[in-house]
């Protein structure tokens, strides 16, 4: 279902309003204008959110108001922080706003059950990368005036944006296109797709348990102490029911009698998110993992090479590098002698 | 040697020659070039003598010269085969090339290896285009002619050569890419239907008939676009005068003599048999373009001052007549058109050679600077007048036969006759206007002859001879020192004012010294052309005899297509005076496909 017939273009209108607001914010001007821009931008975002809610509800078919509140708040913080980041004339503040964006993104990750990524993001981005930025800013930034909030204090190239109109037009175009793809999906509604994906993912997750033998053994021991999880002729096979629960065939050794039985596993037996990610990393993308490490190594070398201070060479050093002999006092002689020196290199007969 | 192997060797011999030129010393280049082109000529003559299908219209040998699997592109084979028309054009090519090369002996000084090497490559490419029975092989040859020609113009051309070569390249390349698209389209549709990729011309032509009328129409249009650029057709002709003016003499000869014929040959061999139904719808419109070309370009010729440009424009007008004959879609015009290709190649090529020989002596082609050269170059003047007359279409020379047949065919194609090929070309007045170009043709060619050949003597290095004795001799004004340009002109003592002066006293300078009038080499180049022009003019029947079977084959689908077309128009009431349809014509009008509307409208406009 492409668009609700009521507001076919509301998304674009919202985007356009937001774009206008961003434009007012981004160009240097009086405070009032920037406030107006803020308001307009907020209006745009508001419209966008309301439309998005409407559209999402329509596409899911669920009741209005079932909006995930916390991701929305986190998202708003992220967007606002990003806006301020790109509009703030002082890079240091911009970097701080970026940290805000990173943190709210991490929250978003948490709400999507990507705990590992959330913390990794904060550690790597906010902790490492942003610090690097700060250092560089301190190395390079000229700050004529440090009075907070005074944009006049920033350098010219930080105050005046270049070609904001074209950039915002391009940005709007991209926004409209991507928004259309998200909300105008003609394929099956995301809900259905997600359900199918969940079913598939459940199966996958249970299967992954097999590649974690120790954990599986522990779970079996937990469920049926004394059971030996030894492979039979068919191997140890997880059987996964339609409802998502899993069972495993084990050998039941009671008093020397051996029989096999399928016992159900508890839901907690499935691998956790971190386990899944780690498993995928080493099972599916081992080569990429290696490459990533190589990249990091090379980046380290590169950074070292780049950051090494370029020493201005004196004339002597340059001559030495070029394989010439050092200048001596003899060279500072009258022209006639200079000619004689030159004629050594010149072909024979040059003087006769 | 089998026929197939002979064809292959005709393709390979120039390439072998080109390689030999590349690795041999510079002064040998021209001899190797001439020798390999002569080898090709010899091979082609032997082939023609052994050719068994002169009067059957069949393609011989029409086999893949490589065993299956050697050329592994899907559906592409290296099938070579010629029928009588192809063979005639091959003979024209192999005949003109040695002459053009020999004619360049003194004209090209410096970078000879490149010149002769590229020229031989060009020869091979042209031959491939004429021999190929596979459209991809054809296209490779057709397209590859551009590259050597580009270098010939860009390296050895005149002052404006860069622009000219660029224009030549862009025009012909863009045009032929569109052609390729059409061919590939038909091939892909054919592959869809048969599940086998097959690029052979016969398969494509067979399949094209099953396309929908709309598809046929656009395929035809796309094919024509490429070929018409090459011909060149009226609105897209503007590359030709430039290319001709800038190209070296030999390049102009081959360009006019053979390269343009690739376009008409393409129309004849590929476009017309491919989509008869589309062709009958569009010929009316195309004929209007032809007539405009003939009349307007003839007038444009009258305003030229550069000899080569004039002849180049005349080529455009002449090819307009040729296309008019071909588009008449009856055997009369079609035969004339094929013959026109050959004749135009001979006479225009010869005219370019004449101009080139003159240019070597005076280093100008500007008619304002030249006058009355008959006085100092009588033999040259004879040849110029002779080839002008062939070009003007003097009966008894070759140009007449073809022009006459083309115009007759075009006339016959204006009315429904009982000739079996009802007419399509549109109103008679239009064709009469085209024939009016006979007059303009005479005007501009005689204008050139009148300016350059006749009149009081005037040439660079001569000064006007008003009030002076005739200046008898012209040295080679090539800037080779003082002695070269010496005009030993105590004219009062000279009787004929035209003695060739091998001015041995003019020592110094290392270049070729040319006599005042044509040298023996130059006469030997022009004389065979003149003899062939005369022979074709007086006894063209053998040629017409062997062309006829081929044109019959090309026209095979047309009577039916025309009947369909007429039935369609009649059913729509567009045909005011309904012709008496033959008894075997379908009584129910062919289904009017809405998609034919565009083509039909063109046809209606033409009427």
């Amino acid at each position, binding site marked *: 279902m492409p668009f609700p017939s009521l507001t076919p273009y509301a998304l674009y209108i919202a985007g356009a309003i937001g774009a206008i607001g961003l434009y007012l914010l981004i160009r240097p001007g009086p405070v009032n204008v920037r406030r107006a821009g803020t308001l307009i931008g907020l209006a745009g975002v508001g419209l966008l959110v309301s439309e998005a809610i409407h559209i999402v509800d329509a596409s899911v078919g669920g009741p209005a108001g079932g909006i995930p509140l916390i991701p929305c708040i986190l998202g708003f913080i992220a967007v606002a922080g990003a806006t301020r980041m790109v509009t703030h004339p002082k890079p240091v503040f911009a970097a701080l706003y970026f940290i805000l964006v990173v943190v709210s993104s991490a929250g*978003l990750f948490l709400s999507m059950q990507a705990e590992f*990524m959330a913390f990794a993001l904060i550690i790597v981005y906010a902790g490492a990368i942003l610090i690097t*930025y700060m250092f560089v800013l301190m*190395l390079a930034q000229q700050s004529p005036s440090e009075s907070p909030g005074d944009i006049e204090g920033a350098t010219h190239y930080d105050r005046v944006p270049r070609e904001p109109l074209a*950039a915002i037009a391009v940005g709007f175009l991209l926004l409209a296109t991507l928004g259309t793809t998200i909300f105008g999906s003609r394929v099956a509604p995301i*809900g259905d797709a997600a359900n199918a994906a*969940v079913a598939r993912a459940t199966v996958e997750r249970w299967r992954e348990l097999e590649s974690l033998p120790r954990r599986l053994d522990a779970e079996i021991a937990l469920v049926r102490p004394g059971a030996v999880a030894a492979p039979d002729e068919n191997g140890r096979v997880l059987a996964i029911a339609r409802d998502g629960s899993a069972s495993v065939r084990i050998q039941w050794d009671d008093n020397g009698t051996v029989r096999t039985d399928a016992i159900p596993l508890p839901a907690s037996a499935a691998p956790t998110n971190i386990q899944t*990610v780690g498993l995928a990393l080493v099972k599916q993308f081992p080569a990429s993992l290696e490459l990533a490490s190589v990249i990091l190594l090379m*980046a380290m070398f590169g950074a070292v090479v780049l950051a090494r201070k370029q020493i201005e060479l004196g004339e002597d050093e340059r001559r030495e590098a070029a394989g010439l002999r050092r200048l001596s006092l003899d060279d500072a002689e009258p022209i006639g002698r200079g000619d004689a020196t030159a004629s050594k290199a010149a072909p024979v007969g040059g003087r006769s | 040697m089998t026929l197939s192997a002979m064809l292959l060797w005709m393709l390979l011999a120039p390439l072998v020659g080109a390689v030999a030129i590349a690795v041999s010393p510079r002064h040998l280049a021209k001899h190797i070039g001439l020798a390999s082109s002569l080898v090709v000529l010899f091979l082609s003559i032997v082939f023609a003598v052994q050719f068994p299908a002169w009067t059957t219209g069949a393609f011989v040998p029409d086999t893949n010269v490589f065993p299956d699997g050697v050329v592994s592109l899907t559906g592409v084979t290296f099938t070579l085969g010629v029928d009588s028309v192809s063979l005639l054009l091959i003979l024209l090519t192999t005949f003109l090339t040695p002459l053009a090369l020999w004619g360049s002996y003194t004209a090209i000084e410096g970078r000879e290896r490149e010149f002769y090497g590229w020229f031989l490559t060009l020869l091979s490419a042209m031959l491939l285009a004429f021999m190929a029975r596979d459209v991809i092989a054809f296209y490779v040859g057709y397209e590859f002619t551009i590259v050597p020609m580009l270098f010939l113009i860009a390296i050895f051309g005149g002052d404006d050569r860069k622009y000219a070569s660029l224009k030549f390249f862009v025009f012909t390349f863009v045009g032929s890419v569109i052609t390729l698209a059409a061919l590939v389209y038909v091939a892909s549709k054919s592959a869809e239907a048969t599940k086998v990729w097959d690029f052979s011309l016969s398969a494509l032509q067979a399949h094209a008939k099953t396309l929908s009328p709309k598809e046929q129409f656009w395929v035809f249009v796309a094919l024509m676009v490429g070929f018409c650029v090459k011909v060149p057709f009226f609105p897209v002709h503007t590359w030709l005068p430039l290319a001709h003016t800038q190209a070296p003499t030999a390049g102009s000869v081959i360009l006019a003599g053979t390269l343009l014929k690739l376009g008409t040959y393409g129309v004849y061999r590929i476009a017309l048999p491919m989509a008869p139904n589309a062709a009958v719808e569009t010929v009316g419109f195309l004929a209007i373009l032809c007539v405009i070309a003939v009349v307007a370009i003839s007038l444009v010729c009258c305003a030229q001052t550069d000899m080569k440009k004039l002849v180049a424009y005349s080529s455009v007008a002449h090819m307009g007549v040729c296309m008019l004959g071909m588009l008449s879609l009856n055997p009369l015009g079609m035969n004339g058109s094929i013959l026109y290709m050959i004749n135009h190649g001979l006479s225009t090529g010869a005219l370019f050679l004449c101009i080139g020989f003159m240019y070597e002596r005076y280093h100008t082609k500007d008619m304002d600077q030249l006058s009355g050269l008959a006085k100092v170059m009588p033999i040259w003047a004879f040849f110029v007048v002779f080839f002008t007359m062939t070009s003007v279409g003097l009966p008894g020379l070759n140009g007449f036969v073809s022009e006459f047949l083309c115009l007759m065919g075009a006339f016959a194609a204006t009315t429904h006759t009982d000739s079996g090929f009802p007419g399509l070309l549109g109103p008679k007045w239009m064709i009469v206007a085209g024939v009016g170009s006979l007059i303009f043709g005479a005007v501009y060619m005689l204008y050139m002859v009148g300016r350059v050949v006749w009149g009081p003597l005037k040439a660079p290095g001569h000064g006007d001879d008003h009030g002076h004795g005739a200046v008898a001799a012209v040295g080679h004004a090539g800037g080779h020192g003082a002695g070269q340009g010496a005009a030993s002109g105590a004219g009062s003592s000279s009787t004929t004012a035209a003695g060739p002066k091998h001015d041995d006293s003019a020592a110094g300078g290392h270049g070729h010294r040319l006599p005042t009038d044509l040298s023996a080499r130059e006469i030997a180049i022009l004389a065979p052309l003149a003899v062939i022009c005369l022979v074709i003019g007086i006894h063209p029947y053998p040629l017409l005899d062997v062309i006829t079977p081929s044109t019959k084959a090309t026209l095979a689908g047309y009577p039916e297509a025309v009947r369909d077309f007429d039935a369609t128009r009649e059913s729509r009431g567009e045909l005011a005076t309904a012709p008496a349809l033959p008894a075997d014509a379908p009584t129910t009008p062919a289904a009017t496909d809405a998609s034919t509307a565009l083509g039909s409208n063109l046809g209606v406009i033409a009427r």
Partner: protein
Amino acid sequence: MTTVLPSLASGLASVALAASDAVVSPADPRLVQVALVISVLLFVIGLIGFLTRRNMIMMFLCTELMLQAACIAFVTFGRMHMNASGQVFVIFILTVAAAEAALALGLVVLLYRKRETLSSEAWAELKE
């Protein structure tokens, strides 16, 4: 199936429980779409920032913002398909971002030393 949406607080608290909560819950389509919208907005804002800011450091910062947006999209899609690949890609993005930060900032410092300014307009050698 209904989803118990963690609040911000309980979300943080539930991290510890996540391991034990083995019940796989499918993604809420609303959540997916909201996250995607946020991702797009961040990307576009980052892009606009990249295009309009003249400070080279800011340009790189905006690049990081765009990468951030991409990360969100990856995680979201991974969540939507219940697939770990999305998060794996985020790991790689983090790697690349770190490498980029190291190298690019080194370059910026280098450039700054040459012209004594951070303005990108000082470097217009690409012009013909």
